[in-house]
Each structure stands twice: as C-alpha cells, then as structure tokens.
C-alpha cells in the first residue's frame, strides 16, 4: 500500500505557526507581487473568498471581515516543508516528495495503516503545528482520491484508506467526480463527460482500448489504477521534465530594453540552474515578455533561440537570449517576462553532433563551480548581464518575518 500525505491549507497554516493570534482567522496568501490570492484557508473559504482572484477585487470583502492578507513567504514555507518531509520519511520504507506540501510514502508490507495514519497526523501537528491528511491506496491514483476524501469528509478524521475491499472502493469512486481524478485535466474531463463518464468509477469501468485510442496511454493507466492495478511507480519521471519555465512579474513596469534584458537574464540563470540540477541539457529557449492582462491593450513580444548543440552553459545561452530579446524588442509597458527551456535531454549518454563542437570541459567545470557557490538559493556569483538587486525585483510588502531562516526574524518570546 502507498499513502499520500498532504498539508491542510499549507501556506496559510505556516503563517499561523508562529502567530497564535492568526489561528482560526481567515487568511489569504498572495502571489508574487501581491497580485492575486493563491491560497486561502477554510475560514476564508467559508466567508466567500475565492482563489486566483486579483487583490483589488477581494479588497472590499477583506476589509469587511478583517481577513489577514500575507505575501508569499517562501523562506518560511520551504523551511517548514522540509521539517514535515523529514518527519514523514521516518514513517515509511520509502518516500517521494511530490510538492511543497505533499509526499508519497511506501507502506508495502506494513499493517495497521489507519493507526499509522492517525499517528502521522498527530506527530506532524505536535512537531510543527501543521495539520496533515493521509490517504492510503494500493496505487498513487487511489491515494490521491483517498487524500481528497480524508480532507472533505469530517467523519474520516483526516485518514482515509481505500483498501482491498472492492465494495468500499466502488462506493467512494462512484461519488468522486472524474475531473478531480489525479492526471485528468479540465479539458480531458470535459471530453470524458461527453462520453458519459462522470464519476471516477465510470472511468475505471470504461473500455480500456477505447480510452487509450482517444486519450492516450496516461489516461488509460489512470483508468487501470482506479481499478486497483499498479501503473505509476515510485520515483518515476522525477527528473524527466519536458520543459523548465521561469516566469515572474516585475515589482514595477519596465519600458526599456536594458532592464528588461537584465531581469530576463536573471530568470534565465534560475532556469539554467534547475536544468543542471536535473542533469539535463537544453536546445531551444523561448523568451517572452508581456504587458498587464488587466490593462485594456495587451501586448507581448517573443522569440525562440535554437542552440547549435545541446548545452547547459549559462554564459553561452545568456548571450544569445540577450540578442534574441533585442531583436524582438518593442517599447511597451512590460510587467512580466518568461524563460522557457524546451528540447531537453539527459546529459547522460548524450551523443553530440558530428559537425558541432561539444560543450567544453572548462564550461562544464565552471557551471559546477557556479552551482556550488550559489547552492541553497543564494546569489553569490552571477552574470554581469543579470541584475543584482533592483527596483524591479518582486514586491512582497505584506511578507511575514522569516521565523526559521533569519537570525533577526526569529520569533520573540515574552519572558
């Protein structure tokens, strides 16, 4: 059996860990630059707040209820997430971190799963002050279903186990909408609905060949998993991303080419760092910059660069990206830019082009030094083209203190 453990309203709960006065209050956490709401807790949901609404639309409701608004404090969330993941790892024979607030655990051969589930919830709550939910299932897809059920049904007490009991599995799946199944996107769900597939059970029982022909292998696997077959294993596709995207909005609009280049290059540095961390090489880089979607006149520029050969050299790519941006530049009021690395491939067994020069050993060594120096999200060594700290950096005006990662921000305790 596997389990999926996820934290309840993670960002909001993190904000309340060191602030007892915020507990049981409606909390909203804003996106980068405080643009829109990215998470909210149960209390805020009950008051009618909605996710992904821009701040100015939510403002009247916030004032009315005295809701707490926070900028994203990734330093705090990251550090608390690590604590939770470390605790979870001690419970199972294998674990795989799935996202900042979710982790898969492997309980193959374990007994008394429900008790273990309650113990996990109790331990994480007492060690960190964060609430978790545990969903057990014989495969990843069923775990996901179970974890949603554990969250939604009060009687479950934070633990749901879809075990080998076929009747129980079918009862749960029959009430579970197909659009919420793991791996089924909203477009796929709409198409499935047209075929009369409404619940997860409908998908589980649909003809596998027909599913495969229409939706491809992954939805077929999902359908099989809902039937308690095991198709997705642990540590699969962890490093095999198809693209790496770094996209952020600026603290204030940019008009000129030079600052636009420098902000975009700093995003590129981040993207290349992720690329190397996943042991991959890149061939194509697409760059884009755009104006605000909320202003009437939406404008964007973009360009695609193809490298002569696969590479992970930031220096080389930065030079080309700079040129590429200059080529397509038109003066607008830009609020965001994006770097997307595609055409990725593993740097293991990489066969280089016969006619093109391979990335030099020096360049590979230099990148390694760069990554080591900058490890832990520090910006110690960077390109001259990039920006150190500028007026266009992310705005996080309502950010709470970095309670766990900065000496000056540690909580103060009244003695």
């Amino acid at each position, binding site marked *: 059996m596997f389990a999926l453990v996820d934290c309840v309203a993670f960002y909001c709960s993190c904000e309340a860990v*060191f*602030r*007892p*006065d915020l*507990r*049981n209050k409606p909390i909203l956490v804003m996106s980068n630059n405080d643009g829109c709401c990215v998470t909210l807790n149960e209390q805020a949901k009950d008051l009618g707040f909605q996710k992904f609404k821009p701040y100015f639309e939510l403002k009247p409701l916030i004032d009315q209820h005295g809701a707490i608004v926070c900028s994203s404090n990734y330093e705090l969330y990251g550090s608390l997430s*690590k*604590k*939770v993941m*470390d*605790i979870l790892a001690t419970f199972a024979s294998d674990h795989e971190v799935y996202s900042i607030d979710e982790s898969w655990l492997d309980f193959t051969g374990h007994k008394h799963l429900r008790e273990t589930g309650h113990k996990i919830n109790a331990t994480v709550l*007492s*060690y*960190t*002050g964060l609430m978790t939910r545990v969903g057990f299932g014989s495969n990843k897809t069923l775990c996901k279903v179970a974890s949603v059920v554990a969250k939604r049904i009060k009687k479950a007490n934070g633990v749901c186990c879809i075990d080998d009991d076929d009747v129980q599995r079918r009862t749960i799946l029959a009430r579970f909408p197909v659009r919420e199944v793991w791996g089924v996107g909203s477009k796929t769900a709409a198409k499935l609905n047209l075929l009369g597939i409404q619940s997860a059970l409908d998908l589980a029982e649909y003809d596998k060949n027909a599913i495969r022909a229409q939706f491809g292998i992954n939805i077929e696997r999902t359908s099989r998993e809902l039937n308690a077959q095991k198709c997705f294993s642990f540590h699969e596709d962890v490093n095999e991303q198809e693209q790496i995207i770094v996209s952020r909005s600026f603290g204030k609009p940019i008009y000129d080419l030079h600052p636009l280049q420098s902000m975009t290059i700093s995003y590129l540095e981040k993207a290349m760092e992720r690329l190397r961390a996943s042991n991959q090489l890149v061939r194509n880089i697409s760059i884009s910059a755009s104006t605000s979607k909320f202003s009437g006149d939406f404008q964007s520029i973009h360009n695609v660069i193809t490298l002569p050969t696969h590479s992970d050299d930031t220096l080389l790519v930065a030079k080309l990206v700079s040129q590429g941006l200059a080529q397509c530049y038109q003066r607008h009021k830009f609020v965001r830019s994006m770097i997307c690395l595609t055409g990725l491939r593993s740097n293991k067994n990489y066969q280089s082009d016969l006619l093109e020069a391979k990335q030099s050993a020096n360049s590979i*060594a230099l990148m*390694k*030094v760069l990554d*080591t*120096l900058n*490890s832990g999200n*520090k*910006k*110690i*060594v*960077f390109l*001259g083209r990039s920006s*150190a700290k500028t007026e266009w950096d992310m705005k996080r005006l309502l950010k709470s203190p970095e*309670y*766990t990662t900065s*000496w*000056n921000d*540690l*909580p*103060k*305790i*009244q*003695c």
Partner: protein
Amino acid sequence: MYFSGYVIIFSTPSANLHSCTYLLPDDQDRIIYCKRILFSYLNSSYLSLHLRSASTQKHSLMSLSTLYCSYIQYRVGEKMKSCIQFSPKLPLLTAPIHAGFPSPAADYLHDTLSLTNLLVTHPSATFLAWAEGNSMELVGIFDGDLLVVDRSLKPRQGDIVIASVDCQQEFTCKVFDLKNQLLCAASINDYPDISCIEGVLIEGVVAHSVRMHRPANYVKP
C-alpha cells in the same frame, strides 16, 4: 595555462561578484599559506594533495587582508574535484607562513564539534527564538537570550515551556507547574501565575537557552 594547486575565491560577507577576487598560487610560500588555512577547515584528506607551483599573475595579498571569505577549493588541470566549505569568517594573515614538516596531527583529524548536534535533539521539531523581558531571570533566562524550543518533548513538572496564552500575538515563556496546572514566572518581582485550564496551549519545551555575552554574529543590535 596549466597548473595544479588550489584556487581560492575570496569574497566579502556580502559576497557579490564585484568583491570576488581569484587568488592564484604565485609561489610556494603562498600556496603553503593557503594550505594552512584549508588545514583548519577541511578534513585531512585534502592535505595530502601534492602541490606544484606554476607562475601565474600576481595578486597582492595585502589588498585582501581585510576581506573575509567564503572559499572554494579544487584542483585545476585534472578532472576537477570540487569541494566547498563556507566559513563565515576566515581572517587572512598578510605574512607568509613557511611550512616545514607535515602536521603529525593530520591523521587524527575528526569532524569538528557542532553546537547544533549538542543543542538540537529533534531537528524537525525544534525552532529557535529570542527571549524578551525579565520574568525568567531566576532560572537563568535573560533578555536577549536564544531559546532552543523542542516541540516533540512532553512537558514535565518544572520544565520551562513556551505557551500561547489567549491567542496573543507572541508566545510566553514560563515554568510549568504540572500538578497545579499553572504557568509561573521565575523572578524576584511579582508576576501573576497563569492558569492552564483555559485559553493556554503549550507549544514546546525550552530544552536549552544560550546567553550572548558578546554580540552574536549576523544579529543586528
């Protein structure tokens, strides 16, 4: 250019590109000197690397003397073995140190003692905090002390605990009287006891506290 030896990148604590200087070994003395610094920070296996000097551009060590560094060390000219150690403050001496007989202690070097290992028993359940106020002076907790709070410990009679009282913004630190369910101050001044029956949530046990007799690194006064 081929040479083998150490490359050390020096930078200031604020560490950005402009303050980075590449110091390349320019004569035997300087290399040995670098080696000495590394000696105290790295484990013994790095000491046995053979050093050959090759002349490269000269840098004045004097100009670096006020800088403190994080450094990176690796061998150049072979397949790179990189090893990084960040030392927050590594003072540079200006006088070259002449090396003679290799240190007989090299083989006996072990990991340095870590305060974290001593003070933090359950890393994933521990948080740090600053003490503020003087109601706990009789148990040796003064204003500005560092508190190491362990959330995994079950509070026992007489433990020093952190609690949230009536959903106030900040936590309170008091001595826990388990038998009478009270939180008590430890001071020559009078502080009222707090009843734990309602509105009080014990958040963790203060396992250790640390006095800063001199200002601590990194902490703004």
